[in-house]
């Protein structure tokens, strides 16, 4: 007895104190600055510079200096950069021409529409597939039947099915996103530990309340993984769709620049696609982290679950 009491008091303080102060005391900005300084002190930024120097240097030397056999056909880095940032681009597309932004806008708009449609349909579908065994037995076989056909193989059929050139492209982009979202959401629900749903029903929650308070938030991490994959594959299919049919958009830029022999513009298109694609998936990640504070904080502490 005499040994147990102080021990208990001690243990309480330790277990209550450490964890929450670590998070509460520090503002996100301070944390970000701290991380950045740490990064600067590590070898990583310098290695990164070495990496890019090697990559771009090789590109430059191979294409523009040594003029190696196949490489000499390709646009070199200085040529691309000069064109990209030229007020008066030789081939008509640079950061100073409005068409450049028009193409970015058109592509982003298509991806956004497809992505939101896919999320609006895919997330609820996935939630129900994971939640109700019966629903899954009825719906999943058809889903599995259609899924092996890659979205890109839908190109001709999509053109036949939908009028105009805009809808087929959006449809293709949607299809790819939709599979990724629905499937990951379903896996998310299925991965929820049965203890959580049991605990909720123990505490008197109805089936619907379990869905709302356990299934949806519990599947959230997987849903956001799915959404990130979904943005990626959306761009993937979009480019194919734009290259085959349609007007405007970055895929279209790349393809027409090829047929019109405007080679530096091809590379501008590719780089721009990479940047826009990266930004959109970073945005999804940001929203996810924001919605799942519990997870961010848990991971920041290296939670011992």
């Amino acid at each position, binding site marked *: 007895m005499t040994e147990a009491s102080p021990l208990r008091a001690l243990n309480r303080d330790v277990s209550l104190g450490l964890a929450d102060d670590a998070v509460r005391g520090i503002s996100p900005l301070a944390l970000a600055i701290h991380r950045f300084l740490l990064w600067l002190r590590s070898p*990583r930024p310098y*290695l990164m510079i070495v990496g890019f120097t090697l990559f771009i240097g090789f590109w430059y030397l191979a294409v523009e200096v040594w003029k190696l056999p196949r490489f000499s056909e390709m646009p070199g880095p200085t040529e691309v950069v000069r064109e990209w940032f030229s007020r008066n681009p030789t081939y008509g597309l640079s950061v100073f021409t409005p068409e450049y932004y028009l193409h970015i806008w058109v592509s982003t708009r298509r991806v956004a529409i497809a992505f939101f449609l896919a999320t609006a349909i895919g997330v609820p579908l996935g939630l129900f597939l994971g939640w109700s065994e019966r629903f899954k037995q009825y719906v999943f076989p058809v889903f599995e039947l259609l899924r092996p056909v*890659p979205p890109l*193989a839908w190109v001709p059929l999509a053109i036949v099915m939908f009028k105009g050139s805009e809808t087929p492209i959006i449809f293709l982009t949607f299809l790819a996103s939709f599979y990724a979202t629905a499937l990951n959401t379903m896996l998310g629900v299925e991965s929820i530990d049965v203890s959580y749903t049991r605990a909720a029903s123990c505490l008197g929650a109805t089936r619907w309340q379990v869905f709302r308070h356990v299934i949806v938030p519990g599947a959230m991490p997987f849903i956001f993984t799915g959404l990130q994959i979904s943005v990626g594959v959306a761009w993937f299919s979009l480019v194919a769709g734009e290259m085959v049919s349609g007007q405007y958009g970055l895929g279209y830029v790349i393809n027409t620049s090829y047929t019109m022999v405007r080679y530096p513009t091809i590379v501008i298109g*590719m780089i721009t696609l990479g940047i826009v*694609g990266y930004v959109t998936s970073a945005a999804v990640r940001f929203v996810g982290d924001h919605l799942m504070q519990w997870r961010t904080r848990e991971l920041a502490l290296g939670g011992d679950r």
Partner: protein
Amino acid sequence: MAKAFVLRAMSTVGGDDFWRGIASIAVFLIFWEVGSRSQALFGIAFPWISQIPAPSAVLQELVVLVQDPSFWMSALLSTLRVFEGFLAAMVVGIPLGLAMAVSRTFYGITFPVFEVLRPIPPLAWVPASIIFWPTQELSIAFVTFLGAFFTIVINVIGGAQAIDVRYFQAARSMGSSTWDIFCRIILPATLPSIVVGATVGVGITWAVVVAAEMISGGGSAGSVGGAAGGGLGFFIWNSYVGGSYTQIVAGMISIGIAGYLSSAVLRKIGKWLTPWLSQY
């Protein structure tokens, strides 16, 4: 014993979920058939679906196609391209991923470049690839390679980095050399994620091959040379140009089956390579 076996067989083939699956596919097919024929049946064309040929017509087309050697030729061409690109991605991607996981310096140098290139969709490389590679075959193979390459490398790195440090410590304390550790710990421990990467990668490969065939063989960049190309992607694009819609759907189904079979084969190989994962 025999009874238990029969019971189990019944529960997979004759169980409720099996019949529900059959029912749902049947409903789907009927809906498709009726929707396609809606113009003839009801005098009004259902939106979208009335443009798709009916499953019965597609089936007839498939029966014709499987007797046509040139169709099999297309399938073979696509399969070969998938195989080439995929194999190249494995051969380059696995050592690269392992090297990146093993050496911190190498990782620091290559990973940022890799991450900058990764968001560029593989198909955006098609024109650049056509310019660079001397033959069309090589340029399609290169784009296919890219499709699987990034997925495989990411999976290899992820798998190798997730290895428990205690395995290394244990191996070291038992006197293993660095090479031993690489062969006996890193390689087998990464194998499951290599298998996952390969299974996902082969799916992407099929998508890329089909699209690349359409783009380079038939799309608006069709000037590349009509004689070249071939393959199932080219086949469906050609069917579209020729206005044979049943062939489009038949081609899509063949692509679906081919893609499904490739993943199934890879899963089988994966199971065989990682027997310790499927013991339960």
